[in-house]
């Protein structure tokens, strides 16, 4: 058993990146307009994904951070494009996706099933909710219990 679970330095972390995360990012980028592809940079012991999403007419720039303890700790996604203050938006325009700060037992992030692209899809759905909230003032989906 390895004592370190560092994403970039441990064998388990490297295996996760090479066998799961990098292939799924490559697949996500296939055939996609360059402006909407995931761009990957190293940040400390983790990785930073920069990309854009456009659920409707508006384009949003985002970044998703895979910290050193990813995938045990869920990815953190924030929107770089200025937003109006709305439900499910945390400090720094971080999206409330997995109930950050919760215990692993109550977190909706499951590292055995999800990848960084799943987090991007979750952000897309959040932005679609935002587009509707922007016009109606009502968040269209109920809060998960």
């Amino acid at each position, binding site marked *: 058993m390895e004592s370190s679970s560092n994403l970039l330095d441990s064998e388990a972390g490297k295996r996760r990146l090479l066998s799961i995360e990098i292939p*799924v990012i490559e*697949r*996500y980028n*296939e*055939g*996609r*307009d360059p*402006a*909407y592809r995931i761009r990957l940079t190293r940040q400390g012991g983790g990785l930073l994904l920069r990309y*854009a*999403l*456009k*659920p*409707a*007419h*508006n*384009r949003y720039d985002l970044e998703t951070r895979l910290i050193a303890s990813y995938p045990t700790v869920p990815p953190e996604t924030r929107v770089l*494009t*200025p937003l109006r203050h709305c*439900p*499910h938006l945390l400090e720094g325009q971080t999206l*409330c*996706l*997995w*109930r950050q700060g919760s215990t692993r037992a109550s977190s*909706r992030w*499951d590292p055995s099933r999800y990848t960084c*692209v*799943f987090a991007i*899809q*979750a952000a*897309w*759905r*959040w932005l*679609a*909710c935002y*587009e*509707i909230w*922007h*016009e*109606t003032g009502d*968040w*269209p*989906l*109920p*809060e*998960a219990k």
Partner: protein
Amino acid sequence: MDFRPLNDSERRQLLAALRGNVESDRVILMDRKDTSFVGTTDEVPDDEVISAIKSVPCHY
């Protein structure tokens, strides 16, 4: 940014897709090139899996 809102028809379609995603596990499809909303489906072809948003167990 200059926010361009959805028109009524677009908003109804997107709302129905989001609710179908949560309540009936219908998959939302995003455009392969620019990630814009395409529609919903029950069956996802293998080559579209990467652009298919399944019911997401998120907090919101």
